[in-house]
């Protein structure tokens, strides 16, 4: 499986670009980038998912980890999630804790 998570910063926004397949074997890479984003005290975490083709519960646990690492007032925005990934997130009720968007917020 191939998976990449790359963290970049733009002002107070942390952007993690996810590519490939986020599964039980690759989720640790995602957690590491979330940890780095949390250390940078961003005000907004954007997860860019348009090149992410697959996500299992290991990825969902990464979202829980992100929500718990970041301060309560830090928004998490998921951009470009495919239908199956968005549906997976909704099935477990995580859409109450993150926002979906078609574009990276200004």
């Amino acid at each position, binding site marked *: *499986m191939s998976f990449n998570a790359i963290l970049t910063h733009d002002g107070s926004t942390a952007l993690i670009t996810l590519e490939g397949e986020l*599964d039980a074997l690759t989720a640790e890479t995602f957690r590491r980038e979330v940890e780095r984003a949390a250390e940078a005290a961003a005000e907004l975490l954007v997860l860019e998912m348009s090149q992410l083709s697959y996500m*299992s519960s290991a990825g969902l646990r990464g979202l829980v980890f992100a929500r718990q690492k970041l301060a309560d007032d830090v928004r998490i925005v998921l951009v470009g999630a495919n239908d199956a990934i968005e549906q997976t997130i909704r099935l*477990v009720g*995580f859409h109450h804790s*993150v926002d979906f968007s078609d574009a990276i917020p200004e």
Partner: protein
Amino acid sequence: MERLRLPAEPESLDELMAYVQTLSALGGLTRTRAHWLRLAAEELIVNIITHGHRDRPGELELTGGVEPRRVWLRLSDAAPPFDPTAYEAVPDLERPLGERRPGGLGVYLARTVADEVRYEYSSGRNETTIIMNRV
């Protein structure tokens, strides 16, 4: 498909999931239905590896088949009995993420996205079958 038998350990996951994707292709599943089969299979396989065989080495067997109306994938292991169809730990879906404990999601997801999950314990083995309709 011919049976695949591998050690029940994380290092086997890529090869096990490649088998599942070959099955989806043979069955002509749509992209979305192939996604759900893959998700259900990963969750149940990871569960067997990380819980069933956490402290005891063993093997996990996959067998798959394509029928006119459906595709089935059978997971067979010799870990202690675990019936995912009787597992009632539905995650607290309305609880905010910040208050949730990790885990408890995989079996719930597998049962939700598969058309059917069947289980029997026979001759000392867990036999878990995931069924996806082809249409």
